[in-house]
């Protein structure tokens, strides 16, 4: 049997749609097994058919996501054929960014969505019609490539970051991708508006108490993750200067 037709039932019971029966979305004829081959051609609902215009899903901003997605390179090139499920499997999807308190897990989950096509020769060619670029070579310019791939998401550089949206869906074409180190490696890091904006991680980005400093899982040069150490270093430095100035004044007065 075609392996693509078999669902990972364990993953499905952990996914966001776990409470649904198959026939809630699929034809009731799926009740009999083996299923009729032509059932695969049945028209299915889109995500927005359920999630759009519904108060209970308002906080997920599905309409905004749709708007942003329509600006993305995926939509511009492939139009309506590029559905949400190309990245977000409706069977197994988990809202990791909303639930996890572990940056590495969020990053891994998010990047696997991109890599499921961009690192898969067959799938990439099936959708795009050409060979997939070699990711490691394309990102050759990026220092410590492996660390970056583990600690930040592809979309950090490959989307237009929006403060008002949980995850930016305007995936940019590759020529518009970010290549400026200080966008992230600075006190006003772009990551604060993207990866670190989730409430479950927010504490880590803002609080400077020792606990959150030590509990940090990633270290980003230049983002002042530990304001306490920054303050301590400024105080020590100023005290040193004050000491030297006082000592010099005495030396001048005493002609030493």
């Amino acid at each position, binding site marked *: 049997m075609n392996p693509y037709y078999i669902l990972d039932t364990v993953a499905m019971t952990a996914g966001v749609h776990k409470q649904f029966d198959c026939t809630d979305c699929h034809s009731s004829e799926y009740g009999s097994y083996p299923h009729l081959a032509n059932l695969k051609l049945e028209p299915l609902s889109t995500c927005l058919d359920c999630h759009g215009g519904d108060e209970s899903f308002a906080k997920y901003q599905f309409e905004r996501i749709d708007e942003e997605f329509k600006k993305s390179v995926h939509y511009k090139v492939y139009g309506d054929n590029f559905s949400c499920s190309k990245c977000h499997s409706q069977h197994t999807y988990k809202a990791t960014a909303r639930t996890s308190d572990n940056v590495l897990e969020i990053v891994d989950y998010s990047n696997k969505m991109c890599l499921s096509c961009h690192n898969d020769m067959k799938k990439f060619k099936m959708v795009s019609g050409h060979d997939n670029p070699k990711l490691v070579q394309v990102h050759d310019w990026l*220092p*410590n490539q*492996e*660390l970056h791939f583990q600690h930040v998401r592809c979309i950090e550089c490959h989307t237009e970051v929006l403060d008002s949206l949980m995850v930016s869906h305007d995936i940019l074409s590759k020529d518009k991708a970010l290549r*400026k*180190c*200080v966008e992230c*490696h*600075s*006190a006003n890091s772009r990551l604060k508006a993207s990866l670190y904006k989730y409430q479950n991680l927010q504490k880590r980005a803002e609080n400077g108490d020792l606990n959150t400093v*030590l*509990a*940090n*899982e*990633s*270290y980003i*040069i*230049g*983002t*002042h993750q*530990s304001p306490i*150490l920054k303050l301590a*270093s400024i105080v*020590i*430095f100023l005290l*040193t*200067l004050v000491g*030297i100035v006082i*000592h*010099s004044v*005495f*030396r001048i007065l*005493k002609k*030493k």
Partner: protein
Amino acid sequence: MSATEKIYFYPVWLRIWHGFNALGIIALIFTGISMQSSIESAQVVGFNMVVNIHNIAGVGVTLSYFVYFIGNMITPNGKYYIIKPQGFLKKPMKQAVYYAWGMFHGMKAPFPISEKRKFNPLQKYIYIIVMYMAVPIVIITGIALLFPEIIIEKVYTFSGVFVTAILHSSMGFFISIFLVIHIYIASIGKSPLENFKSIINGWHHVH
């Protein structure tokens, strides 16, 4: 003018090492601060360039450290760093009191330098801490950060890279503070410039 005795304190290798090391450390401090604060110094020198300069200077200072380390092993210069147990705390305290109080009250330097004693006890302790503790830590953590894949992933619940980076930058900071005090203390002499001349021409005047 009283008769002065000249001692050849700083051999050529030591002066070359000292000069090279000084330039390297200064480059490391400035690029280190720039990286850490990321003040949009990008306008002047880009972040990538700053990182490159920091890496190159770091490798340079590491190599020069070996010159210093081996030099102290095989030349008589190493003997100035030996600490004797007598007066382990008393001696440096006495020197500290001299700097803070005695020198303004007509007290004579308690440990005047001579051929046998290049550093006063306080100076010796601080040099040992900086050169045999802080600098090696900065070098080891620096090499680790240059090849982050060799760092252990987790230290208890903390990221290994994070712990390494904090250790690296705090030791770097400690060395920067040392540098400021080192330069200031060097100005205490017969005249403020005397010690600076000595480290260039090698000769020290003992008054």
